[in-house]
């Protein structure tokens, strides 16, 4: 299979404008004849559904929560990047592009990233017009702050709730279209399969989570904006409901899955406290603007942090990376924390933690300023840990946060199945092997507001859409597959709960395919995952029935998919014999312990294709070319 990314030729600055001009248009009166399904209602899905509704398409939008406003984009804290250069500190579209490609360790597609940087400024305009209450200076202009991996202040924010405010903006735009009748919102509904007819994505099979009813939805195109798959690790900063089922079932219908092993471990999360732990809580990266990270210089030092004198503290990021200091990218910060904890310098009961200390900033700026900047985050920390971060340094440890991998898409965000488009975290497109802070919100909204409204028209204008009846064999086959899987899960009636399997699976992945990976460990992990998966299908127990609200049943289907995905993640990690970004193979590191890329052999996107339940996935490579940013060893020193 040959992959065509359909990147426009010519200078990168003009690529998107040229592509938009070259795309075929659907005339306004024909738009209402086309139907589009949008699965997911977060920043990408919500903004896409609203924008497509405004254009006049018939849109159906689905979410598994009770309302679209609960999508997990809402939990993003720190901010959204944009190349506005309001602070006059040397920012430009090219610099945002450059930082993102470099931050992604040269494993992203240049043309996509450039377009993202171009769109970034329009996103801020759009959100302000919708009433997103971004932070302001006293003079009334928009405020900015800095974030990891950048030396300019380009991040816009709304206290520590930027994701919430941007999502509410998209949600309100969506509700406006629902009122106008262009979008039909279908909540509490989960997509369980993709319907492919004559090679084109033409619909989905869903299950209503309250009534258990199965439904078939046919349309001219399907958009998946279902988020990332970090919950495959069980413990992550994702919401409990976040899952990979929609993209995984699309993968099994022929969509390629790109770079599954590129997972991001976020450096600043609250450490695990016990076995009952159900999820991990992120402390925004913005805290690294004013917080200083350190560990005691002595191993196993159990003194309270306030009793450790200044000269016995190791501010290791400032020491090792003097020019970026505490603002190194996430992968670098996480790996350093892990290494020090492994060596015995960690703090807290478990030894799995480092200090994030605000005392210097509080002395310099005053408690009031710090409270204004981070008050809600400090409150959240105190509620969870019962410690006051204004007085005692926070304890933090890395946790799974984001997945750069996802379904493969071309420049128009179309997957390898015609008519199936993938937006936001669910696709693989813009962040390479490591995402910079405050870039996820930017990508979700760029995809939804500004890219898909153009590219989907090109698809609709150039394809034919014969009517598909519910009785069509492809539709019935998808429905039967879905039903039999659910019936099977209900009928096993074994002795272990879904959660106990999920925890064990997550532990395997975290141990062998987390912040550091080895060939030997990955092989071991694949074996363990297969054994556990076999046990799952013999010994899981799902209480209740399929005809009412049954959360165990929902989880059972999602965990079944996580098992298969986990294996693919390990296969991909094993295949990539280099270290880059969040993918750190211990065999490949520089003498200083930094990631050692192998551009000669691995400068490509690894796109995996499904070949059947018991056969190995097939690898297709999309070579990456760098014309504007020369790949170099990333240095933040």
């Amino acid at each position, binding site marked *: 299979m040959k992959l065509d990314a359909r990147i426009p030729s010519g200078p990168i600055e003009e690529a998107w404008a040229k592509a938009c001009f070259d795309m075929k248009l659907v005339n306004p009166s024909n738009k209402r004849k086309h139907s589009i399904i949008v699965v997911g209602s977060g920043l990408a899905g919500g903004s896409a559904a609203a924008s497509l509704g405004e254009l006049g398409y018939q849109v159906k939008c689905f979410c598994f929560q009770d*309302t679209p406003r609960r999508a997990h984009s809402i939990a993003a804290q720190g901010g959204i990047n944009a190349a506005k250069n309001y602070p006059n500190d040397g920012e430009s579209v090219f610099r945002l592009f450059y930082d993102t490609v470099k931050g992604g360790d040269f494993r992203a597609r240049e043309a996509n990233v450039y377009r993202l940087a171009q769109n970034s400024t329009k996103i801020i305009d759009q959100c302000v017009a919708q009433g997103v209450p971004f932070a*302001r200076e006293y003079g009334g202009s928009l405020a900015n702050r800095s974030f990891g991996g950048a030396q300019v202040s380009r991040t816009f924010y709304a206290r520590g709730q930027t994701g919430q405010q941007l999502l509410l903006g998209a949600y309100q735009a969506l509700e406006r279209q629902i009122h106008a009748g262009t979008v039909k919102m279908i909540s509490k509904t989960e997509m369980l399969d993709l319907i492919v007819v004559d090679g084109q994505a033409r619909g989905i099979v869903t299950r209503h989570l309250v009534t258990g009813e199965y439904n078939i939805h046919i349309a001219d195109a399907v958009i998946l904006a279902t988020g990332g798959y970090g919950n495959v690790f069980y413990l992550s900063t994702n919401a409990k409901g976040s899952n990979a089922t929609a993209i995984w079932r699309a993968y099994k219908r022929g969509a390629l899955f790109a770079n599954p092993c590129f997972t991001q471990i976020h450096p600043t999360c609250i450490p695990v406290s016990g076995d009952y732990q159900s999820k991990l809580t992120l402390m925004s990266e913005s805290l690294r603007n004013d917080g200083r990270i350190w560990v005691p210089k002595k191993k196993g030092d159990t003194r309270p942090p306030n009793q450790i004198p200044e000269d016995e503290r190791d501010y290791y990021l400032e020491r090792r990376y003097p020019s970026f200091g505490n603002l190194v990218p996430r992968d670098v910060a996480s790996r350093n924390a892990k290494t020090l904890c492994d060596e015995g310098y960690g703090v807290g009961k478990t030894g799995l933690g480092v200090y994030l200390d605000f005392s210097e900033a509080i002395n310099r700026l005053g408690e009031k300023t710090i409270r204004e900047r981070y008050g809600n985050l400090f409150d959240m920390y105190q509620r969870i840990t019962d410690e006051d971060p204004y007085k005692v340094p926070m304890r933090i440890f890395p946790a799974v946060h984001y997945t750069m991998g996802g379904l493969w898409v071309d420049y128009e965000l179309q997957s390898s199945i015609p008519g199936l488009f993938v937006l936001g975290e669910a696709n693989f497109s813009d962040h390479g092997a490591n995402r910079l802070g405050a870039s996820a919100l930017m990508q979700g909204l760029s995809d939804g507001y500004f890219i898909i409204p153009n590219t989907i028209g090109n698809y609709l204008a150039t394809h034919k859409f014969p009517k598909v009846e519910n009785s069509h064999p492809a539709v019935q086959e998808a429905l039967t597959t879905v039903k039999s899987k659910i019936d099977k899960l209900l009928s096993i009636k074994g002795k272990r709960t879904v959660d106990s399997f999920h925890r064990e699976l997550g532990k395997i992945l975290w141990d062998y395919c987390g912040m550091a990976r080895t060939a030997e460990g990955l092989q071991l992990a694949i074996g363990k995952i297969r054994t556990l998966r076999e046990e799952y299908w013999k010994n899981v127990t799902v209480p209740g029935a399929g005809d009412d609200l049954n959360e165990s049943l929902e989880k059972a289907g999602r965990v079944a998919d996580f098992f298969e995905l986990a294996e693919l993640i390990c296969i991909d990690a094993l295949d990539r014999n280099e270290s880059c970004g969040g993918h750190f193979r211990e065999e490949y590191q520089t003498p200083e312990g930094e990631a050692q890329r192998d551009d000669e052999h691995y400068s490509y996107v690894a796109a995996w294709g499904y070949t059947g339940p018991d056969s190995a996935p097939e690898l297709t490579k999309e070579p990456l070319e760098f014309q504007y940013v020369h790949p170099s060893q990333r240095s933040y020193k």
Partner: protein
Amino acid sequence: MKVTLKIWRQKNSNDKGQFVKYAVDDVDGEMSILECLDVLNESLILRGEVPVAFEHDCREGICGSCGFVINGVAHGPERATTACQLTMRHFKDGDEITLEPWRAKAFPLVKDLVVNRRALDHIIEAGGYISVGTGQAPEANGLPIGKEVADQSMDAAACIGCGACVAACPNAAAALFTGAKITHLGVLPQGETEKDRRALAMVAQMNAEGFGNCTNIGECTGACPKEIPLDVIAKMNRDYLCGSFQRRDDLPTPITPVVEGA
């Protein structure tokens, strides 16, 4: 420590429902009350019983999914805290903790602690937005907005739509929720143009959904996990009053309200 959870169990909206007591051992102070329910549910599943249904998602106090009445108080005893952030260290060994769903006519019960809150979406759908399409926006810094105004807007915009205000109100009014959105948008210059119509439409929808009237008791702001201030209700009333004088001929028609659990 050990606690007893006294939980409202109800199969669906047609079922009568009742409290059932469950003993939970091995409760750790660091657990959230949702994690305590997880532990209970794991043991119920292994005993072949139906686990307790409750809504939850982000578990960090921002998505607004979770929420039930804990010992008579929406989201429990701690100030500015959602149920998912309420840790068990606030309870004592041997405590009996009563959990019941939000009770309001506009929130039909779905199962156990889960209610249908789509009525809140309808209020937003009726007019809780600024009518600007994608691509119509002017340059963001072209419209200066003073820090105080932005802060006032943000204070109201922090609402997570959990419904605790409705559950806490003796009249089951949604005035704090509706007022929060009216204030978030209405104090900003971008949102001012539509403020009359917005207030009329949203209030009409609020009434159509069967929420009660506000009698200025203030329980709502006390229960609100985001501490939305009571003045948003005053702002709503003012905009509604101005709007009803200026737009008598142009009253919006409400959307069909929510009636059933599913």
